[in-house]
């Protein structure tokens, strides 16, 4: 639904440090997703906002130096990697505080997780869908979500869910398509 170049031009404007507007736009668009990533990397929930701040700070710091390598989703992969590195740094610090030991072992452990580009972009997509689903879920009634989850994810028959939720089959079809359409819209919003 986005004109194809919107995000690209945003990133270009982002690289101009004087462009506060682009920065505000970027933060508005990506902060919720980045905080989702941080959480998924295991940051304790009371620290999620702070770590997300660090991720944003790191991006702000290095975005000028980022260069498009021409491969698909280059910026997103880079951003995901930044988020991951910051999260790891944070976790290492936590580890140090909890155990009183140096964090380098722990850090190495995490760093050894394969970081192939293919996997990065796959994980980006995975997390993006997850994030969108969580977000969309909050918009809908619980019964609509159950209709979606039961029939689409668990593959149960529409009739069974209709009886369980005490609604008509028609409303199951409607709810689940609405939820799907919203998830798709959210995902597309953040994709180049």
């Amino acid at each position, binding site marked *: 639904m986005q004109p194809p170049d919107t995000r690209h031009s945003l990133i270009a404007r982002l690289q101009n440090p004087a462009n506060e507007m682009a920065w505000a736009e970027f933060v508005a668009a990506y902060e919720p997703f980045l905080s989702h990533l941080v959480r998924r990397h295991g940051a304790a929930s009371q620290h999620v906002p702070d770590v997300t701040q660090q991720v944003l700070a790191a991006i702000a710091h290095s975005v000028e130096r980022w260069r498009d390598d021409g491969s698909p989703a280059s910026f997103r992969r880079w951003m995901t990697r930044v988020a991951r590195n910051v999260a790891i740094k944070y976790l290492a610090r936590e580890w140090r505080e909890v155990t009183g030991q140096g964090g380098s072992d722990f850090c190495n452990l995490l760093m050894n997780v394969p970081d192939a580009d293919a996997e990065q972009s796959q994980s980006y997509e*995975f997390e993006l869908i997850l994030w969108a689903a969580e977000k969309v879920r909050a918009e809908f009634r619980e019964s609509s979500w159950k209709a979606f989850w039961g029939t689409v994810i668990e593959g149960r028959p529409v009739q069974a869910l209709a009886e369980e939720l005490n609604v008509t089959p028609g409303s199951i079809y409607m709810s689940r398509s609405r939820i799907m359409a919203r998830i798709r819209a959210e995902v597309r919003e953040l994709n180049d």
Partner: protein
Amino acid sequence: MRPDRRDLIGASLVELQPIQCDRDLLLRSLEETLSERQEEQLTEHLSECYACQRELERLAADQAEWSKVSETLRRAAQSSDSFDASRRTPPHDETEPRLGEHETDFAVDFLEPSREAKALGRFGDIEILGVIGRGAMGIVLKGFQAELNRPVAVKVLAPHLASSGAARQRFAREARATAAIVHPHVMPILSVHSSGRLPYLVMPYVGCESLQHYLDRNGPLAPIEVVRIGVQAARGLAAAHAQGLVHRDVKPANILMEKGGGRVMLTDFGLARAADDASLTRTGVIAGTPQYMSPEQSRGEAIDARSDLFSLGSVLYALCAGRPPFRAETCYGVLRRITDTEPRPLREVNPEVPLWLEAVIGRLHAKDPAARFATASETADLFEQCLAHMQQPALFSLPACAAQLAKSRQPTVDNTSSEQRSHPSNMSVPLRKRRWFAAIAALWLVGALAASLFAWSFFGSRTDSVRIGTMPNRSPPVLPKSESSATQWDGAAIQIDDALRTSDVLHAKVEELWPAAPLPAPGETEALVPSAPNLLFNSEQESTK
């Protein structure tokens, strides 16, 4: 007076007939722009029609997207840690403080010790006796001003709003403007204190309840009561408009009724706007319930006094019907209904409503501000004459204007056709959607900029951090859905039970906190950086070296 009624019954019988397959209807159901009636019909049709079931799914997403999403969610559900269908709230909610505790904490944090034994603490010259209620905007405390020997209600802006410069300024500005309105149908503001860390305002403590409360307890009101409330609310609005003040958040929760069904008073002028400034930044979502917004407001356009008239129409509709006129499953759906569809005719919901009243409310509900009554005082005058007619029909005839409106209402009883008129069918959906998103995005951006202005003043001295500072919109505790929709403070409404329940907690916390925790200096924005204040700058300094 009767034929229209028969038409109406005829019309609704026809509509129970099965409808035809209609792709446009399916598209609009995804956008949530169908009227309730259309939605019922379509749901029914969908139960039977295989072709439409498939078509709806195709319209929602293509095959690849369906399978990608379902695969992803299935995988996430299987991996132990993350996504679970049975959980009501997203996982990160669990360890975060509930709104209640959070709000109580903040109130306690800002109280000063009191010499009064039964007081929880002191806020300026006011002894705080308890908590009346709380909402997304802040907290309402019950207090006593010893010097003036009077009970008062103190509204305190929540720290996350107080930390936004723009929200703060607006709070102060609007509160002062409201304080300048002296009118029997506007809840008076006794004083405004906007320079402290948390801005607050003081109002009289009156025994009253909000219309929302009343509606929840008693259901729809009799038409004559609705008109009586209409007169008073419109008078209150007129007084505000005369001061150049637009309320922006006229809804049943913001209209208080004196106990015993007496006087009606408007409250919370412009505070909704202050909330928008800060919360839009964070979530991109409009704070609270949008159900009473005007079309121009829900599109994020500039509004004037006539926006309040639309909202007043929605309030009166809700009082007659027992429920708001525009309802949908999601916030987004509500906004679309407000901008694109007509509410179900009032008399279909409550046959006791006279046609002229339905028509007058319909006039307030005109999508085009220019088609509404021109001013709140014109509206009040009209309602006053209508009320006279209702009380003494032999003495006062129905005002010509109302009779005229009722007359013109009759032929358009079938509101399906009027809805379709408002939907140019040649406009493609993506385009419409894009326009919509653009509006939301614009709102969002405004919020973000407001926040960045604040951030600039907060981080201003550290040049290196200014850029980082433009995004310190730390996510607030994610409000549980039910809480976030209750933006109302509920003014001086009666929620004493609640107050009693929380005051114990308060007491405990007060004793814990005071000896140990000196109040932070004014420059420290404790609300912004409570848990790990140094993380951001530590890491920054490290990486700068």
